[in-house]
């Protein structure tokens, strides 16, 4: 008995180096699952609360460790990779070389579908990557099952189609057509015509909130809840026409890129933008968000690609040389940029999460004359879908997709029963639009103890404009029996506008109040000593 305990002590002291390294690896994984720092319990004086919180922190540590161990040992698949030896560079590897090296199933994912008649194609994938909708500018809509390469339904709407987007699953998709946006079912029947929005330039769906966001030709942003059809918000951005709109998957915030080079971020519950960033000297061509929510890539017409850190709103990196018409981030953080008929994939060469350094990873040039319209990485696969002027293609990018999916989040092998159940669960977990905020982890956290903060001047102005517009656009009842004189009507309308303005007090009042106070203080200094106790004390 004693000998074995001595042996145990020895093994504890002299761990082999591989095991020590894996401990470090496990530590980083545990940090990921802990989701932030633990609370500082030393400052608590209440002993009962302290012990309760300490036991809870212990439980969090245990669960994070178990999750890290599961990630290390129990996940079924491993990520793809492309490693070159010695002098060969990764961006010189062509798709044909890749096709020679990989298995048959993967090489089926490389193809070009040529449809020259129907114009540049836009694509969208479902969350599980199984279905794709392709919309050609001249009116061709095609719903494809990517795993079996089966065309489920194709329709010709005989109008220009500017954008397509899936709703929560492959049963519904939305198409932005010439005058209005339409929602179609899986079998091609037109379900809804969304007239309120006007001619839509871009459509995006916020999955957790069931909101269909769109920006139309006059620069108005609309949010509509597709479960009951109500328009949650329609915001006049005031920045003119734009067709660059992307959704940040981390927090549900919509970013618009404008022709002045600014990128503005919006949430449905406020009329003023959350953030305005001056990104480029010229118009912004495209915006893309990293799935972790910290990185944003923007490209401008001055042939620069900039990578921004969204926590500090600072520029991390600029890449010169080409004008990227379309950008897309993959699940693993690879950035795809498309210009003309050339696709460039950039990868993060530094492994750490704090500093990023994007450099060339792979290239692909298509047949000259194919103008790339949209790039989108397919979820959970090492594939990127390219929509271009002659149809759509798909090429292999090793290391871009997440290898292990979670059946409860997105299941590419879903049966119809599972899909129906998932739809019900998604609806039960539908988030109210008020939960869209820049930092979604603030929900449930302690509010910083401040006095109620006044909304900023810009916000107040925006709200005022909306209220005045609403007052102006109300229709007055048409009175009869000689009471409907035009002079009275105009007077009534003016009165309504004045009432709307009155709820927003003048901004200039603050200055006068502070001036008065200063006068009072000066006067107090001039008073004789015997009267000083009557001076107004503040």
């Amino acid at each position: 008995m004693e000998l074995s305990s001595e042996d145990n002590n020895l093994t504890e002291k002299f761990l082999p180096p591989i095991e020590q390294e894996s401990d470090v690896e496990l530590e980083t994984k545990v940090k990921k699952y802990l989701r932030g720092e633990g609370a500082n319990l030393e400052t608590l004086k209440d002993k009962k609360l302290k012990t309760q919180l300490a036991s809870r922190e212990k439980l969090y540590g245990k669960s994070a460790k178990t999750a890290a161990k599961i990630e290390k040992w129990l996940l079924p698949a491993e990520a793809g990779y492309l490693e070159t030896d010695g002098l060969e560079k990764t961006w010189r590897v062509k798709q044909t070389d890749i096709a020679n090296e990989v298995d048959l199933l993967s090489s089926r994912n490389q193809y070009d579908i040529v449809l020259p008649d129907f114009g540049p194609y836009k694509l969208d994938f479902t969350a599980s990557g199984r279905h794709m909708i392709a919309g050609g500018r001249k009116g061709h809509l095609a719903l494809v099952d990517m795993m079996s390469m089966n065309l489920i339904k194709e329709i010709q709407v005989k109008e220009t189609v500017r954008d397509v987007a899936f709703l929560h699953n492959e049963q519904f998709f939305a198409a932005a057509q010439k005058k209005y946006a339409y929602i179609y079912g899986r079998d091609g029947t037109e379900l809804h015509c969304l007239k309120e929005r006007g001619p839509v330039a871009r459509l995006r769906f916020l999955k957790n909130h069931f909101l269909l966001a769109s920006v139309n030709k006059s620069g108005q942003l609309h949010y509509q809840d597709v479960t009951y059809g109500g328009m949650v918000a329609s915001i006049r951005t005031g920045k003119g026409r734009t067709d660059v709109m992307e959704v940040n998957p981390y927090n549900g915030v919509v970013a618009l890129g404008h022709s002045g080079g600014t990128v503005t971020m919006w949430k449905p519950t406020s009329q003023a933008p959350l953030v305005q960033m001056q990104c480029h000297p010229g118009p912004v061509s495209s915006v893309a968000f990293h799935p972790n929510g910290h990185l944003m890539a923007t490209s401008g017409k001055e042939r620069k690609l900039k990578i921004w850190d969204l926590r500090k709103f600072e520029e991390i990196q600029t890449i010169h040389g080409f004008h990227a018409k379309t950008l897309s981030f993959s699940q693993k953080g690879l950035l795809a940029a498309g210009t003309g008929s050339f696709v460039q994939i950039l990868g993060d060469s530094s492994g750490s999460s704090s500093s990023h350094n994007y450099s060339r990873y792979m290239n692909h040039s298509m047949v000259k004359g194919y103008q790339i319209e949209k790039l989108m990485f397919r979820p959970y696969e090492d594939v990127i879908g390219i929509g271009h002027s002659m149809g759509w293609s798909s090429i292999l990018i090793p290391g871009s997709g997440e290898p292990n999916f979670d059946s409860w989040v997105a299941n590419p092998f879903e049966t119809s029963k599972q899909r129906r159940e998932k739809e019900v669960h998604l609806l039960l977990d539908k988030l109210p639009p008020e939960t869209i905020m820049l930092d979604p982890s603030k929900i449930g956290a302690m509010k910083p103890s401040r006095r109620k903060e006044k909304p900023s001047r810009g916000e107040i102005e925006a709200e005022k404009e909306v209220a005045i517009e609403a007052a102006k656009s109300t229709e007055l009842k048409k009175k009869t029996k000689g009471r409907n004189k035009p002079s009275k009507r105009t007077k009534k309308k003016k009165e309504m506008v004045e009432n709307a303005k009155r709820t927003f007090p003048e901004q200039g009042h603050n200055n006068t109040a502070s001036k008065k106070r200063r006068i009072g203080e000066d006067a107090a200094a001039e008073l004789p000593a015997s009267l000083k106790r009557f001076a107004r004390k503040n």
Partner: protein
Amino acid sequence: MKIKTLSRSVDEYTRERSQDLQRVFHNFDPSLRPMEKAVEYKRALTAAKLEKIFARPFVGAMDGHRDGVSCMAKNPNYLKGIFSASMDGDIRLWDISSRRTVCQFPGHQGAVRGLTVSTDGNVLVSCGTDCTVRLWKVPRPTLEDSSVSSENFIEPAAEYVWKNAFWAVDHQFEGELFATAGAQLEIWNHNRASPVQSFQWGTDSVISVRFNPGEPDILATSASDRSITIYDLRMSSAARRIIMMTKTNSIAWNPMEPMNLTAANEDGSCYSFDGRKMDEAKCVHKDHVSAVMDIDFSPTGREFVTGSYDRSVRIFPYNGGHSREIYHTKRMQRVFCVKYSCDATYVLSGSDDTNLRLWKAKASEQLGVILPREQKKHEYNEAVKNRYKHLPEVKRIVRHRHLPKPIYKALGIIRTVNDSKRRKEDRRRAHSAPGTIVTKPLRQRRIIKEVE
């Protein structure tokens, strides 16, 4: 050059035969789940709403007594049965599952004030205002009992007459002695016709008595001179004694922490004490607006139920100042006795309107056999609701209880009275020299002194 791309074969990820279960794959990476806190908040809101939808605590009423129910006793060996006694001397044994009387124990001439069962479940002891203590032999429950519709009448096994009316009785755990409360505290043995031991202090009568579940020789009593006394039978005198501002109607020991006891007081609060150190209450449980008549602990020791003169039954956590739950009905009048069932699932209340009522301890609990998946979902809902119960929307739903109008108004009046007292106290302190005005905490304020 090494290249590998993801390729999933359909066989690995789908089931082989249609009789197999579907395959489920997990990846707990937080980056796959954006906005997880918002989703959890939404689930907490839904869980709180569902809990309110399924909250149906009232199970049934047991009708049969002809006068108000004065006391109840539970048999720890037999979950289904409960004894109850009324103000006209009627003692019954009920079968809770069918809510019917199994047998009656007639004999008392006046009100029955105390009922208790011996630990082995064979002997029922009752005492009343007719100065008698009666011992009854409890019939063994057999399978035929549930089918028998006629009620049996049992003769008392023994009947002891004494000098004064009795107010309460309690049986020793794992012993042969039982104690009665009357003009004095008397200790009896089953076989003797007169008390074995007798304690007296002053001239006031003893109102309630309770033996400690952990230490069989220790018992706590409360007297009409507003005192709580702890006696040790081996010592022949009182061990501890405190005098409070108002009298204590009932006492209960915590079965999981036998040194702690909780006293149900006339001023509407319950005071939890550590039996070893009685000069300060450990916790004050305040929510009743009128006198608390009876108190009983759950066998888990984590909650206790109280019945009050204000026609409501409340369930308190053992260490919390406010009630977790309130039960009330228009038909339920003054509640005189409450019991927590021995499986911690039900609460019984006996009230002035001659009915015994059966309530669920957790109002939205699903009774019966639950599938493991259902159980997991219930646990998840409970956990996510507890995590977000401080957020205003969720708190509003979780806290909401409909109160009967008299209780609601009385609570409002109590709040204004307390606020004004506190404001006056604050002003006095602000306008006097610092340190002259010292407020005692509520845990000490209601205790006048500790004697001996």
